[in-house]
């Protein structure tokens, strides 16, 4: 990130290789449209290129920072699309408050993917479904409760137990 902040294009290319697809996939899950998702992914990397200096290692990994930013941007775009707003979204503001202390050079390694999959497998199917619905959509907890027919307290407790299990699973399987 320091190299990107210093204007090193090769560093930006490496960052793109490591996270570009993941950014687009997350955006596509939220937006349901690939071209828009790729635009959002490019927006996020462009934001990183322009504002890498605002990244704070003490506050989290590069991956977590990027995922927070891309989710927020994709949801923004979804809202503006639903509101039938203008065709082109402005380049965003706040470079995100979460940064990374990460030597996670192997984020996309097969080993890591297996570890995350194993952690996800510890979730009950209904916990996983609620967690994914809360993450990959713009639905509030109360709307999720309404749409799923579950009481609000259950939605909250499922999200909580899912995330606790996911965190514990990641610790157990190799973070």
């Amino acid at each position, binding site marked *: 990130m320091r190299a990107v902040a210093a204007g090193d294009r090769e560093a930006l290319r490496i960052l793109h290789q490591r996270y*570009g697809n993941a950014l687009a*996939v997350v955006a596509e899950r939220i937006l349901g449209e690939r071209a828009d998702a*790729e635009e959002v992914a*490019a927006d996020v*990397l462009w934001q990183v290129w322009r504002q890498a200096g605002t990244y704070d290692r003490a506050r989290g990994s590069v991956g977590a920072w990027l995922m927070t930013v891309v989710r927020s941007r994709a949801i923004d775009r979804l809202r503006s699309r639903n509101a039938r707003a203008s065709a082109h979204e402005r380049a965003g503001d706040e470079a995100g408050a979460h940064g990374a202390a990460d030597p996670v050079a192997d984020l996309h390694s097969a080993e890591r993917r297996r570890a995350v999959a194993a952690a996800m497998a510890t979730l009950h199917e209904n916990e996983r479904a609620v967690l994914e619905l809360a993450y990959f959509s713009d639905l509030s907890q109360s709307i999720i409760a309404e749409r799923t027919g579950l*009481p609000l307290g*259950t939605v909250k407790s499922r999200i909580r137990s899912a995330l606790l299990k996911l965190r514990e699973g990641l610790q157990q399987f190799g973070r």
Partner: protein
Amino acid sequence: MDHDQLKDLLPLEALGRLEGEERAAMAAHLAAGCDECEAELRQFREALAAMAMNAAGEASADRIWSRLESRLKFEQAADSGSPAEAMRAPSSARGASAVRRWRFATAVAAAAAVVLAVVAGRYANNAELTRRQSADRIAALIDQNRALAVENENQRRELAIAHLKLSASGRLTQAMLAPDARVIRLGPLAPARGAAGIVAVSEADRQAVLHVAGLPPPPPGKEYELWWIGAKSGPLRAAVFAPGANGSATVASTMPPVGERLLASAITLEPAGGVDKPTGAAYLKGVP
């Protein structure tokens, strides 16, 4: 709200899903510098990011890079000043030469210029018309594309929700039909004489599912909690739930404790989110 209550809300904060007073209380708590919550929030965000980065999808890295590259080229050009120059120069040259021509124009040349201007004007109008038509067409296609994407997204959500609704009842049926199914019937206790429940456990499928009916709605801030009561371990939390409007619910629970005799299973009323050991009144109880 105190620290413990806010700590319970950290998963929702990590998802950006807190609302109203809870959201404001969390912001104030974090702003006040609670290191413990800050650290836990960071862990949850990392876990969500790991989940997100593992989501399956098709590769589109080349197209993303080409979008980025075009921006980088534009930025480089803008920094060097050449595009601005390139865009300005022809226009000022045209302006200067037009002024010169005007100064030396004769009456005949002026008439010819008028004719030329009319023709040029028509071409310009036609070009403008074509440009507008193209822009309208593109805007219509963008709108159409958006509408289809929204429809697609809505269908995807409906599917996820349907899946969610089916999953609990499907799992109950599956657990009850498993060859090694063990079923524990839960009988009503004093607070809910009309209630009944059943827990189906399949060791082979590694799943346990609870179905209850006739439970009264829990008061605000409370939820029901299912317990496994082991001979050695005592009560262990199995599931936390709130029944629907009709008093029924079907939820997955943890598996019963391994390697010890199960004495009973029971449901108590507890603070929302559940507790580690039962504290409230028992509503249903059954023995294996």
